[in-house]
């Protein structure tokens, strides 16, 4: 109960700060939509090719926008030595990890709610009925991204060139998540159902569960070493 209560406390504090500053959300939103427009004007795709390209292009946009969000994840704690204030407190480190993961997840989902339909409009995709399944697969991939991203963001917290270092350590580790999510989305867009992509979906779920659990258990060590 303490873990959940503390998670809720820190998450509410982060959301309140974000509502006031709107730094991360606005940056992520504009960057995400900007990337879609760049893709739209760069590729002259026929509808059949769009279905093949859509998962990769969407995830490219999510990766870059998500990394922007991760770079800002501990910004409030970096100011005024507030990270020390949290370390000094009886706050469970697992709760801090869950709160930061949850916060980043909320930001990314908000961006995705705008970016995915915008992609459908820009590329004249007709399969609007598949959006709920696309959202579901994207959500699972986003959870994996946020879990691993929060861990890596904490590891690089005190690094000198953390903005440069973060994608370098994060992207190689994200390969299973990206691959699984893209394969699942391809299957959904081609067949109209997940069907043959179930092994990839299981991989995605397994990744989310394993890294979420590992994150809660090792976050203490990550931030103190």
């Amino acid at each position, binding site marked *: 109960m303490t873990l959940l209560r*503390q998670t809720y*406390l*820190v998450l509410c*504090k982060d959301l*309140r*700060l974000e509502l*006031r*500053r709107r730094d991360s959300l606005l940056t992520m939103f504009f960057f995400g939509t900007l990337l879609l427009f760049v893709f739209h004007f760069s590729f002259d795709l026929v509808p059949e090719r769009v279905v093949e390209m859509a998962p990769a292009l969407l995830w490219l946009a999510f990766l870059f926008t998500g990394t922007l969000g991760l770079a800002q994840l501990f910004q*409030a704690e970096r*100011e*005024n*030595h*507030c990270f*020390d*204030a949290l*370390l*000094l*407190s*009886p*706050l*469970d480190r697992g709760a801090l990890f869950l709160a930061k993961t949850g916060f980043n997840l909320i930001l990314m989902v908000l961006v995705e709610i705008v970016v995915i339909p915008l992609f459908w409009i820009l590329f004249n995709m007709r399969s609007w009925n598949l959006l709920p399944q696309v959202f579901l697969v994207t959500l699972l991939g986003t959870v994996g991204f946020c879990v691993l991203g929060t861990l890596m963001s904490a590891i690089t917290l005190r690094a000198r060139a953390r903005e440069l270092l973060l994608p370098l350590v994060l992207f190689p580790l994200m390969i299973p998540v990206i691959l699984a999510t893209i394969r699942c989305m391809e299957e959904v867009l081609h067949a109209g159902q997940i069907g043959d992509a179930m092994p990839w979906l299981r991989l995605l779920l397994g990744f989310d569960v394993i890294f979420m659990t590992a994150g809660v258990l090792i976050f*203490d060590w990550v931030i*103190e070493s």
Partner: protein
Amino acid sequence: MRVTADKLAKAYGFLWALRELDLELTPGECVALLGPNGAGKTTLLKLLAGLIPPTSGQILLDGEDFSRGAAALRARVGLLEPAGHLYENLTVTENLAFFTRLYDRNSAARAIDAALAHVGLGRRAGDYVANLSSGMKCRLSIAKWLLLEPELLLLDEPYGVLDGSGVDLLEDFLKDQCAKGGIVVMASHHVSRVLDLCERAIILSQGRLTFNETKRQPWPSFDQAFREFLPHGGA
């Protein structure tokens, strides 16, 4: 609470900031932590606060190893950063409410209002911390620790940003902490002021504990240590 530092040492790379330090702090004590710049005062405070792990040795709080950092032990230790440890984009009240809930202390609006009134910030309750002066932030930190009730309170150079009434407020707060059985350890270069308040003085020099005595009048051993290790201070 009884605090014991046993053969405490801290190295940053090849540089030893603190070496083989043995220290005992007993309830109700107010201790002045003195020493020139780079003597290891801030390192010792951070070790006692559990913010950094020791390279060797250990800190025991009531016989329990503090370096393992159990949440229940952390809740009993406070570090008063004069103008830090506060969220700039939260209001004064929101900061206090957040930390009191985090520490599972009384977060009722009435308690927060009373603490703010006590430190003279009653009319700034709705202001963002970013809009406060350094002195006001320090007063807010005092209100924060007033509400969080630590048993061991550590202070690093608290006098720099406070005006006269702020200093009186801080000293009354610290006296009250000690009267309630708490321990106060204060690092400062304002030697005469901290010695007025504290019953014991500790001097660090190049990471070593060179002086550790209870105050008395006259105090020739302190005068000698002061001349030797704090050559540029002013008692």
